[in-house]
């Protein structure tokens, strides 16, 4: 089945890598996004955003990680210093951020702050950064390169990015623009399209079984509509390999 789909999708007969599937899954986060700021944190989401802009999401605005917005040719097309991000871009909401997650739970609460008790953590991480503000102001997705029970936990230690249950509890001001979209991993794509906004297994990457994802997740997942993650088409593969990531840095983050 997988082999058949591969030959349909890419005429060159090359074997598509898991990293390339993950890049396309991250690109798909931005389908129909329009002229918004895409803020992908981490390598695979960055490659995905660039691929999306070169194909089905040409309107995306992308930063260089510093203060400039660069177009697809690398030309500076805008100025976006950190102050503008926090004062204007985040609260205005025309943005989709893809953050990492040291921990994530069933309702999409994410932790990048610390492991253990916040007062005296076992392991200090980055801090909550912009996760609380991002999640209550605009669309947020997550990327994790290692889908495991250590990441997909029953309860996160420090709620940094706000999940559906906590946004609801915090009231209208928190839930009004709250929009945790999807979680992309090295194994699967997940979302929260269920009646109680708990996590759902949207698709497993080719070569990954539903059971494998369930085994690597601490909480139950709705698998009633699970499909297979699509493969890149021939043009997407060419763009990934020749334009977006010619040095194959993607294989370091997601080994095949």
């Amino acid at each position, binding site marked *: 089945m997988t082999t058949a789909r591969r030959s349909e999708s890419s005429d060159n007969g090359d074997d598509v890598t898991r990293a390339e599937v993950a890049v396309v899954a991250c690109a798909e986060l931005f389908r129909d996004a329009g002229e918004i700021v895409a803020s992908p944190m981490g390598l695979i989401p960055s490659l995905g955003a660039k691929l999306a802009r070169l194909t089905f999401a040409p309107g995306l605005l992308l930063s260089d990680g510093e203060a400039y917005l660069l177009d697809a040719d690398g030309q500076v097309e805008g100025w976006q210093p950190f102050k503008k991000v926090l004062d204007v871009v985040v609260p205005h909401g025309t943005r989709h951020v893809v953050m990492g997650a040291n921990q994530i739970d069933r309702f999409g609460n994410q932790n990048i702050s610390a492991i253990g008790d916040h007062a005296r953590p076992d392991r200090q991480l*980055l801090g909550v950064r912009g996760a609380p503000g991002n999640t*209550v102001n605009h669309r947020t997705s997550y990327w994790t390169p290692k889908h495991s029970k250590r990441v997909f936990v029953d309860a996160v230690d420090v709620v940094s990015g706000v999940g559906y249950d906590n946004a609801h509890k915090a009231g209208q001001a928190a839930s009004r623009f709250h929009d945790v979209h999807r979680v992309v991993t090295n194994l699967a794509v997940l979302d929260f399209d269920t009646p109680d906004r708990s996590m759902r297994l949207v698709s497993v990457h080719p070569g990954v079984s539903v059971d494998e994802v369930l085994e690597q997740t601490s909480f139950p997942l709705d698998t009633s509509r699970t499909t297979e993650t699509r493969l890149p088409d021939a043009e997407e593969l060419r763009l990934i390999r020749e334009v977006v990531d010619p040095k194959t840095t993607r294989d370091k983050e997601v080994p095949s």
Partner: protein
Amino acid sequence: MDKRMTADEVAAELRDGMTIGIGGWGSRRKPMALIRAILRTDVKDLTVVSYGGPDVGLLAAAGKIRKLVFGFVTLDSVPFDPHFARARQSGAIDVTEYDEGMVAAGLSAAVKRLPFLPMRAGLGSDVVTTNPDLRTVTSPYADGEELLAVPALRLDVALVHLNRADARGNAQYLGPDPYFDDDFALAADRCFVSAERVVDTADLSSAPAQSLLLNRGAVTGVVAAPHGAHFTSAAPDYGRDEAFQRHYVACAKDPEAWPSFVDRFLSGDETTYQSEVTRFQEAAA
């Protein structure tokens, strides 16, 4: 109107228990020469407000911080500062952990002389549960939204590093990002600026006028500090010294290596620091 002073004179203005704001962002344009001068004093029990980088790590390692108000501490190209991690994991410092935007809002409230500013950021997150003093405010208008009231972050002293300044305290950034240095300056009772070069006022006009981030009314003292942001970046004068930052991280991770780093780089004055850095770079080249 000559506000020039030395880094050590700035450090001598600090008192135990003060709240100080530090400009820059992560491992970018940090007033490191001023931080190094603080390390040479006996001042302690500081409350530090910072978009944290190695400024926080160094002050924590030297036992200067009682409390940190922060959204993150990172060295950018290296995710975590080992000293900060150790300070947190040993319970050596208290923290007020905010969303990045809340730090900006708190500074902005202080600048505007408001008690708080309302925002969504923080609602529903553990920022609220770990800071039980935070309060919400209900919109008096028809929407009735209950928003977080981020309290003003008033500072005793702000320390920032810019590319150019004149002796009067007018100060200029030449890189792509002002960060929050203007808010830090105006949120503070006194702001001390270190600059790559202190120049004639007329020379400030060689860049666009909007690069003049601070006017002299906001500045108490000016320190000439070439390479004063090292090892953080001060674009376009220089980028981050990645090799030195890696050396800092390696030494900070290893309690046995750290004393020799302190001995070599931090126990002398700024001139000694800069000459040892040059020797380090030459040895690595």
